[in-house]
């Protein structure tokens, strides 16, 4: 009897998981040997300082190695480019497979509590997509490990020495992740009723706990490379493993990646839903995938709204750790990347908003809030233009002479951070407004305090907008530079107040509300392309921000501790970086389409 796709994958999974585990365990055990004596790498490690202090006498304070340019293996291709591609692909898929179980669990829970099977079916379908991606994640992870040890043996040897037995935790977690992932997915139907459902939800919770732990363990390595702790100036380990892990950038990176993963995962499954919608032949399928697309967009945008604040915290901590590093990122050679970031986030917000506006056409009856969309669109476009305006213009020398400098008299002030903060906060506020209007579009509110509630909500919006603009203009242009950063806190609080109060007021206002019929499936094909724009922009954005995070270290493997003396120890031009990002984005898109196709091969109907 021919094997089904599910059967083949289920037999292959344990093999892949064991191979990954053995690879990681083997490398983790072998890794420290690079720094153990006797080793050919000993010649690269400076002699221990002639320090007669008690500490040096009792601890072997071996500094970080200092490889010269000729010490790096030469494979005939750029080592940095190779590792870049493999690492980025691994991160794309890892973000996806860690994020999907997070919101799947929440959706499953909603289905369980409401008794609406549609939620459970959708959650199950999301997990099916994630399962196919999991093995690809592991394959790229194993390839990345081999590439790093092969091409940067000194750096990896040092990292293994610093993190010591902590690296063994990573493969163990992978093993646990695999176990709980298979249990969670393959027991879905068997544990779908009564008390068994609680067991299933628990499996999902444990799965997410393991996945989140995987994330924070790996983040410790990345944050150590940027802001090393637990080591002295020479790179010798002087602190505990906890001191090494818990650097100043670890938690900001944890929070930012955790939230970003959810937004990214939502966007990718939204693309799946959009693809299935466009390919659907029956009205029932169209309705199903239209609803799935809406839910995915909801997840992506809801997770995306607080993401700038998490990113801001990360940047603030980078500045606090090293002003040089912070300025390199946002005011120095990498500053232009943030103009590209503005283009990407503008794309994400406008696509997300457009999808919501299009969705209002699903509601039966006259569209109640359509008139607002042109004003929201106007604000979004103006803010986007402000956000992409650079401080320094791209001019020829003749143009610069005619202008009298590289900064435009009127547009120049829009190029500095206060203007950007105003723009991004307003974009978030008005995106939430689109979201709020969409949620209200199909509701007939029955509470007696509807008018007062609406007046309160309107007042909160108006005050928030005034606050955001005033704080940005006053502190940004009329006070000392040091106050600029503090003003952004006021702006963030205003935006968060709008979001939180909007959710609270609407939740209370929707009690016993009537619901207009939503005609799922009755939405334009154009709106589905907005759901493709989201993951494309998100993917490119992830590649861009990862590139920034990596390059703020400039010519250091571990910032200020272990210098990068490889042939690739320079910051590449933004065009080259953009081409690399496009390459990995296209690779990811093709692989995701492959995953969508693989998922659809299993024709066994999800209930």
């Amino acid at each position, binding site marked *: 009897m021919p094997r089904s796709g599910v059967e083949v994958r289920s037999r292959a999974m344990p093999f892949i998981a064991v191979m990954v585990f053995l690879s990681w365990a083997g490398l983790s055990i072998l890794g420290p040997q690079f720094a153990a004596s006797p080793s050919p790498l000993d010649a690269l490690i400076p002699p221990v300082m002639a320090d007669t202090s008690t500490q040096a006498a009792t601890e072997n304070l071996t500094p970080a190695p200092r490889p010269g340019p000729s010490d790096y293996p030469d494979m005939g291709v750029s080592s940095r480019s190779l590792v870049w591609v493999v690492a980025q692909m691994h991160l794309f898929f890892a973000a996806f497979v860690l994020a999907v179980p997070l919101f799947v669990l929440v959706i499953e829970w909603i289905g369980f509590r409401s008794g609406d099977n549609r939620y459970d079916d959708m959650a199950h379908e999301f997990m099916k997509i994630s399962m196919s991606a999991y093995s690809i994640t592991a394959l790229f992870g194993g390839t990345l490990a081999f590439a790093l040890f092969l091409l940067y043996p000194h750096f990896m040897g040092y990292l293994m020495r610093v993190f010591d037995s902590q690296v063994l935790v990573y493969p163990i977690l992978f093993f646990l992740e695999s176990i709980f992932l298979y249990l969670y997915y393959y027991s879905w139907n068997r544990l779908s009723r009564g008390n068994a459902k609680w067991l299933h939800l628990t499996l999902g919770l444990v799965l997410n706990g393991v996945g989140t732990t995987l994330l924070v363990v790996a983040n410790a390595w990345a944050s150590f490379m940027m802001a090393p702790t637990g080591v002295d100036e020479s790179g010798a380990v002087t602190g505990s493993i906890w001191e090494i892990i818990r650097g100043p950038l670890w938690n900001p990176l944890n929070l930012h990646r955790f939230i970003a993963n959810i937004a990214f995962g939502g966007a990718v499954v939204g693309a799946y839903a959009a693809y299935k919608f466009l390919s659907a032949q029956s009205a029932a399928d169209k309705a199903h995938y239209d609803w799935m697309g809406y839910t995915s967009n909801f997840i992506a945008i809801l997770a995306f709204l607080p993401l700038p604040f998490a990113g801001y915290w990360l940047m603030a901590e980078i500045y606090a750790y*090293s002003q040089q590093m912070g300025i390199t990122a946002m005011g120095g050679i990498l500053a232009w990347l943030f103009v590209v970031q503005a283009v990407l986030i503008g794309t994400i917000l406008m696509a997300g908003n457009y999808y919501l506006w299009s969705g209002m056409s699903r509601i039966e009856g006259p569209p109640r809030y359509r008139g607002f969309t042109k004003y929201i669109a106007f604000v979004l476009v103006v803010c986007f233009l402000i956000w992409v305006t650079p401080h320094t213009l791209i001019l020829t020398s003749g143009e610069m002479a005619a202008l009298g400098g590289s900064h435009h008299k009127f547009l120049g002030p829009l190029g500095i951070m206060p203007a950007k903060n105003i723009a991004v906060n307003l974009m978030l506020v008005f995106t939430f407004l689109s979201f709020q209007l969409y949620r209200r579009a199909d509701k007939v509110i029955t509470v007696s305090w509807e008018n007062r509630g609406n007046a309160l909500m309107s007042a909160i919006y108006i005050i928030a907008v005034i606050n955001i603009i005033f704080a940005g203009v006053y502190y940004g242009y009329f006070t000392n530079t040091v106050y600029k950063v503090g003003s952004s806190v006021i702006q963030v609080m205003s935006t968060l107040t709008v979001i939180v109060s909007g959710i609270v007021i609407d939740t209370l206002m929707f009690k016993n509300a009537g619901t207009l019929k939503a005609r799922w499936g009755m939405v334009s094909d154009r709106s589905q392309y907005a759901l493709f724009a989201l993951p494309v922009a998100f993917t490119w954005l992830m590649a861009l921000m990862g590139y920034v995070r990596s390059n703020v270290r400039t010519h250091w493997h571990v910032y200020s501790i272990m210098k990068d003396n490889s042939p690739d120890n320079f910051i590449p031009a*933004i*065009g080259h970086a953009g081409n690399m990002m496009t390459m990995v984005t296209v690779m990811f898109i093709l692989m995701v389409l492959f995953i969508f196709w693989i998922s659809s091969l299993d024709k066994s109907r999800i209930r």
Partner: protein
Amino acid sequence: MATLLKVLGFSLALTLVFTLVSNTLPQVEGEAPVEQEIELGDLTMDGFVAMGETLFSGKGTCTLCHNELGRAPDILALDMIETSRERMADARYQGEARDLESYLRESMVSPEAYVVQGFGKKGSKDTESPMPAVDKAPIQLNPIQIDAIIAFMQAKDGNTVTVALPTDAPPDETAGEISPGADAAPAIAQSPEEAIAKYGCAACHTVLETESPVGPSLVDVGERLSVSEIRESILDPGMVIAEGFPPIMPMDFGDRMTAGELEMMVRYFSGDGR
């Protein structure tokens, strides 16, 4: 298939937009600093100043913060000699520089000695400097490079350059960045003040011009302890712990100090060497 092609086409087109944006922006590569050979025999003062100017915007990365954007004092717009004079006269100045050249050097290797008002770390009330020490990673300027930058800062406004042209090559960076060399012993202190600085007495004791509440004051220790007691307190601090103070003084000064340094400090604290 039609759907697949349309979706793929749209995704690739959008990706192309982002690619075009990144390729139309200014294309700048960030080169890692390369150590240049310094031909000391041919070096003139003009050449030394020019070297300092190159380092100022190159390896020193000074212009990253010291520019007209307000993140740090705009050194290129200020007369640094005049500015140095004002800062040394400021009541907030806590450094040890005795002349303008040493102030400039101190501001680069110990920026926390004086933080210009309004440019301190957020929340520190201008007591902590966000500037890294330029002789340590990640900048790692050697003494000759630091002198070159000082020469540039002095010369750029037409002031007299007081730094001397270097005559010795800088220490090899690969062996000497963190320590002067694995086999080289630390330099022997030539004065009590030098010895106090070398062994970090001021970290815990009130001595010279600094104050610390961690250990007993050494300003008048000669009135409380005899010469032999002072010697014993340095060599075996655990023998007698002053009341009210923690027993945390390092126990290894006997291994680290030379006999000459020990006697010099004993004489100083007892009042004979002052």
